[in-house]
């Protein structure tokens, strides 16, 4: 039986699919009866998606043009 602190510490690794079979089983058993940790798990999943969506960067056209010009110069040299 694991504690809430243990469960929370393992949540992201669980969501990464990187827990060992034993740790995964222990966490899922805990999530089966602990509503707070279930909420933590759902929020951790949201937070992962939020990080991916929000941190995406676009390559601005002017930067792309300058980098391609550099590539062309390197190829020509």
């Amino acid at each position, binding site marked *: 039986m694991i504690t809430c602190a243990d469960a929370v510490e393992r949540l992201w690794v669980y969501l990464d699919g990187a827990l060992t079979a034993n740790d995964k089983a222990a966490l899922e058993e805990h999530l089966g009866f602990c509503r707070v940790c279930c*909420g933590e798990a759902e929020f951790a999943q949201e937070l992962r998606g939020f990080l991916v969506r929000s941190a995406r960067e676009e390559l601005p056209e002017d930067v792309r043009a300058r980098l391609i010009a550099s*590539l062309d110069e390197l190829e020509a040299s």
Partner: protein
Amino acid sequence: MEAQLPRLYTIARRLVGDEAEDAVQDALLKAYRGFERLERASAGPAWLTAIVVNVCRDRGRARARAPAEVSIDVVGEFSLYRKIADEDPFPYSDSLHLDFLDQFGADDVRAVLERLPDRYRVPLVLVYVDGFATKEVARLLGTPLGTVLAQLHRGRKLFERELWNYAGEKGLLEGAS
């Protein structure tokens, strides 16, 4: 190589911010100079990524911009989920936690990430934003896998804590109720 530019720029942008273009320029030059050392074309994207990461880390060191170390005891106990529930910044909300995240624009998230020391931000970004496996990150950074896993754990906690601190400092929760 041209096809890799958006990905390389994305990584550099999050590692060194406004210096991203210069970092990619440096990395392209290094890549051309070392091209004959690349044994398999299929390894090209990972090889280019490693060059960009190293260039960015060198720039990070040169700028000596890493914030002070944070105690694992302090950050290890922090739970953004519980903090939001305890502080209840949106008393009339039935989706309190999602409403909290909705206050952040892309620039805010970038600013929060930039508050994290490089040693935590770099693995966090490479794994959760760019989709690298932890083993690949360990190889790219020349760091033992166990260290990368520990950095990820602390980086996730720091990210959560800094989201909360940033929201308070920037007034993102003011008038929420």
